[in-house]
């Protein structure tokens, strides 16, 4: 397996684009990434597209018909909320394997006002695992994830709320975020409850978005850029059998498995990270992932947020972008966008939210059902 670098990285501002269609949004991100890499579609040797709501509608090829129909291989992938990062990883593997030298990964989603309220439960009888409808909806699932942490370690609702305070504070400096509004602790706690312990500001908003990355072999990368961002590890896991999974989606085990594998592959430990972009679809999720990603010890995640260690400027900044809580979570776009965010920090291009001197970053995404990706990037 060869070394692979990110040479082009781009995303559009996440938000609502009722007057544009999906292909327009995705094309904009893709063209931006190509320009950033200093190439056109003519240099791209394979394309992977991640999209969820139009997963069966040839999104990758439709984008190419708009920006350059060169005839190269196109793969459309889907992996729940890890769709975009799975697309990135397939592009990574295609280059790492030596099969291609330059690949383009695109993540996109046009959600309009549809949200995470729908679970997967109703689509197919084989996927139903509940006694009564409405118990498997996303907010409830991630509510339970937090409540499990409460049970084990005495974590409080306020500690979860502090995650939202932090991420919304970070978002003020991110022009790509759907919302850029600070929310003091009081406001977060007093907002209406969506699924306890998560209130409105502790749940990611829904919207449209797109992001893209150009990946190259080391040789090509040196030809096109002086600031390659290296992919030190690219890991994908599914959820193994555990006592209560999939009755209770176990977001912890597969993240831990992925983290262990990623740190080992990269030869980089959690103590070496300059920053982390992780999957805070709900505030409860971010807190449990502090431990899953080994940013702290077992049961210490509450203390980590209490002491402000995950703020920009703290020991290990998490979601300097504002996270999904502020950026929004256009499903297929998310996984590519958080890799792009890390790449921008490593290049020193993150503007007001820049993590100073960032050298190594980790991008984590989890999709229920389940798929977890971890990418470790370094300068």
């Amino acid at each position, binding site marked *: 397996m060869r070394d692979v670098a990110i040479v082009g990285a781009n995303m559009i501002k996440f938000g609502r684009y009722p007057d544009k269609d999906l292909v327009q949004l995705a094309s904009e991100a893709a063209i931006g990434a190509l320009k950033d890499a200093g190439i056109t579609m003519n240099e791209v040797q394979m394309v992977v597209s991640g999209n969820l709501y139009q997963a069966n509608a040839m999104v990758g090829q439709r984008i190419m018909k708009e920006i350059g129909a060169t005839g190269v291989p196109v793969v459309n992938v889907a992996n729940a909320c890890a769709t975009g990062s799975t697309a990135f990883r397939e592009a990574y593997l295609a280059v790492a394997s030596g099969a291609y030298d330059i690949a383009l990964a695109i993540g996109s989603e046009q959600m309009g006002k549809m949200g995470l*309220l729908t679970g997967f439960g109703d689509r197919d009888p084989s996927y139903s695992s509940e*006694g*009564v409808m409405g*118990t498997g909806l996303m907010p409830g699932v991630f509510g339970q994830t937090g409540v499990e942490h409460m*049970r084990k370690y005495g974590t409080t609702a306020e500690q979860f709320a502090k995650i939202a305070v932090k991420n919304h504070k970070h978002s003020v400096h991110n022009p790509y975020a759907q919302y850029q509004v600070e929310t003091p602790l009081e406001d977060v706690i007093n907002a209406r409850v969506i699924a306890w312990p998560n209130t409105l500001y502790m749940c990611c908003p829904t919207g449209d978005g797109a992001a893209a990355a150009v990946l190259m072999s080391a040789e090509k990368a040196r030809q096109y850029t002086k600031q390659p961002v290296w992919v030190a590890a690219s890991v994908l896991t599914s959820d193994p059998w555990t006592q*209560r999974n999939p009755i209770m989606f176990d977001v912890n085990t597969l993240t831990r498995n992925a983290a262990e594998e990623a740190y080992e592959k990269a030869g980089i430990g959690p103590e070496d990270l300059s920053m982390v972009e992780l999957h805070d679809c709900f505030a409860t999720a971010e807190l449990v992932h502090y431990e899953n990603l080994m940013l702290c010890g077992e049961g210490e995640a509450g203390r980590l947020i209490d002491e402000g260690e995950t703020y920009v400027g703290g020991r290990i900044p998490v979601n300097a972008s504002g996270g999904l809580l502020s950026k929004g979570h256009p499903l297929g776009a998310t996984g590519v966008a958080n890799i792009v965010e890390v790449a921008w920090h490593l290049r020193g291009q993150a503007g007001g939210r820049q993590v100073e001197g960032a050298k190594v970053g980790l991008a984590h995404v989890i999709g229920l059902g389940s798929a977890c990706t971890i990418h470790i990037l370094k300068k």
Partner: protein
Amino acid sequence: MTQEQVATEKKIKPLVPFLKIPDKYPDEPAYLWGSKCKSCGTVYLGSRIACAKCASTGPFEEVRLSDEGEIYVFSVVHQTVPGLEAPYVAAIIDLAEGVAVRANVYGLDPLNPSPQWFGKKVKMYTEKIRVDREGNDVIAAKFKVVDGK
């Protein structure tokens, strides 16, 4: 009763395949059932093709699951899909056989969620929740808190 009447008679159907409704229901209560992998002993809700834990393709033994269990964790869902009344307690319930069930729990105040709920004993009951297109009653499993703990 003529044949024709039988054909058009209303039936009772379970919402999920792992809820069994005896012929004599409601005189005989409905119950949850599962499959036990004879290779590794893991119990699953409903039927299985193979074992998710050990990958054995069987055989599986059908087991009747307990009506009683305890709350492992929960959330209280306030915003939900149209047609459901909120807030409700959405819990993960551990049964004695080592299998978990996802279900709503009644008998708790949804506006005052509390760590006191962990480990609370709950008991399954069934309730008609709707009528399907063919006019059959659809029965779901719910859980309620057992008094005394």
